């Protein structure tokens, strides 16, 4: 019997655990922040160098817009990527720590477990990406004076939902293939990066990639974030970008969960939960 009112408390176990892990592995968190900042900076400099690279005059306002275009892409991708990775790694990480059997033996419904991990991840991804944004702003002028914050938060929220679903669905791979499963999850992430127009408009992509971009939630989220942060578009005018991403989230979370529960059962039937190989 599952008591609904107990679930937030159970989910909190994972948030508290992840917070404790972040404290103990703080040096690693610092490494990720530095890494993220450096990556974002190198991408932003591409924008600043637009006149030098193309060899032609580019108006300063255009350069500044280009830089913001790239920055929104890289930092939003950092955030969504962290959400995806943390959830896709739920199996692999606990296998590595050696705790997987204890977490899976506990009387916690799988949905509660995964939502708890998702909540922890949102906290972590927010801290890391906001810090990265401020660190980048130390080096490069970031002009957010036109930004519509409500729209931006809306898209981050919708994107988070969709990426939680994608992450849960990808966490299935390590349950099925103990050795190569995690790499498969990373391949999913890489393909999403390629087709979603993170650093360029999807119009430059070949036809097959454009077809994939239509089903990638990141396509809508990143475009929406650009609209919000660069052009200050309000939530209502961005609705055509909101609903497709929302739809992916609404579909992928239940499908991902169902796949996860089935894969967990398969792992318990074949002895793959803990063993590698």
């Amino acid at each position, binding site marked *: 019997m599952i008591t609904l009112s107990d679930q937030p408390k159970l989910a909190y176990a994972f948030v508290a655990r992840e917070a*404790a*892990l972040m404290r103990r592995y703080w040096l690693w968190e610092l490494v990720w922040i530095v890494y993220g900042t450096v990556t974002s900076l190198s991408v932003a400099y591409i924008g600043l160098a637009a006149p030098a690279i193309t060899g032609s005059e580019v108006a300063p306002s255009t350069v500044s817009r280009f830089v913001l275009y790239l920055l929104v892409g890289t930092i939003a991708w950092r955030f969504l990527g962290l959400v995806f990775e943390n959830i896709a790694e739920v199996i692999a990480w606990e296998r590595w720590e050696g*705790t997987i*059997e204890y977490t899976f033996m506990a009387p916690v419904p799988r949905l509660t477990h995964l939502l708890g991990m998702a909540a922890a991840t949102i906290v972590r991804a927010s801290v890391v990406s906001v810090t990265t944004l401020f660190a980048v702003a130390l080096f490069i002028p970031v002009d957010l004076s036109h930004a519509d914050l409500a729209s931006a938060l809306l898209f981050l929220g919708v994107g988070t939902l969709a990426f939680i679903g994608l992450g849960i669905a990808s966490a299935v791979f390590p349950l099925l293939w103990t050795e190569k499963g995690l790499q498969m999850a990373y391949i999913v992430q890489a393909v999403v990066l390629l087709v979603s127009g993170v650093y360029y408009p999807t119009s430059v992509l070949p036809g097959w990639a454009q077809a994939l971009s239509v089903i990638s939630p990141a396509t809508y989220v990143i475009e929406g974030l650009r609209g919000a942060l660069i052009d200050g578009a309000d939530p209502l005018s961005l609705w055509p970008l909101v609903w497709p991403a929302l739809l992916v989230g609404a579909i992928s979370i239940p499908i991902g969960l169902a796949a996860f529960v089935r894969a967990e059962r398969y792992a318990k*039937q074949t002895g793959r*939960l803990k063993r590698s190989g």
Partner: protein
Amino acid sequence: MTLDLDLQATRDGTVSRRGESLALVARGVCKSFRGAKTVRAVDDVSLSVRRGEIYGLLGANGSGKSTLIRMFSTLLEADSGEVRVFGHDIVADELAVKRLINRVSVEASFFKKLSAMENLVYAGRLYGQSGPDADARGRKILERLGIGADRVDEPLDKLSRGMQQKVAIARAFLTSPMLLLLDEPTTGLDIRSKREVQTFVRDLRDGHDATILLTTHDLDEAERLADRIGVLHRGRLVAEGSGEQLRARFGGNDLESVFMTITGRRIEEAANEATEAASA
């Protein structure tokens, strides 16, 4: 058959024919692992453990002890057969079973960089306890097991293997399981720690209404702790009874010679079967 007749469970698997309540009932449980070569790890095992009993499982390496324990703790699904914990079917009623059990494995299995207390509080929360409750209880249990208050907030990978094993036992005990599954709980501990853990296990049963199933390679430990002992050999339960009964039946002075007789004879039988098969 080696099963005590009076312990055969009635249909719903909650009481024996004598009317004792049963903590664990397994009937015809099988488990094979498919790979390059299929391994039959557990082969048609039936056993019952009474509430409040300490049941010891003996068996050589690879005889299927851990596999059996994993099936009892919902971590592996049996290919066939049925397992009930206090009457709950382990597959159909998984969540209810999970609330009643806990397990200690040979490997300590912790978040290595978290402290003993952080690991225990996490475990307590998973079983519905509040953080402060789990913290207070955890500290008490660790103290009881001889882990000094000065060590409980250190990262676990700084503690010795024996101390980690005690923390693992504390983690299981923290959730007040009705059925405690101990897979080689004292392997790798020095004599003193071994005794402490053994005393703790006994006290647990006597003072806390816990039923305990434990595996061990230490025959002395089995004799000392277990009310009944089952011997697993190549996945089959080949003998069962109190230490005394086993000695009487297999004619040895101690459990070691009983164990050798049982497993040795089986090895000879298998060798004979193999030669017969080869000459046929």
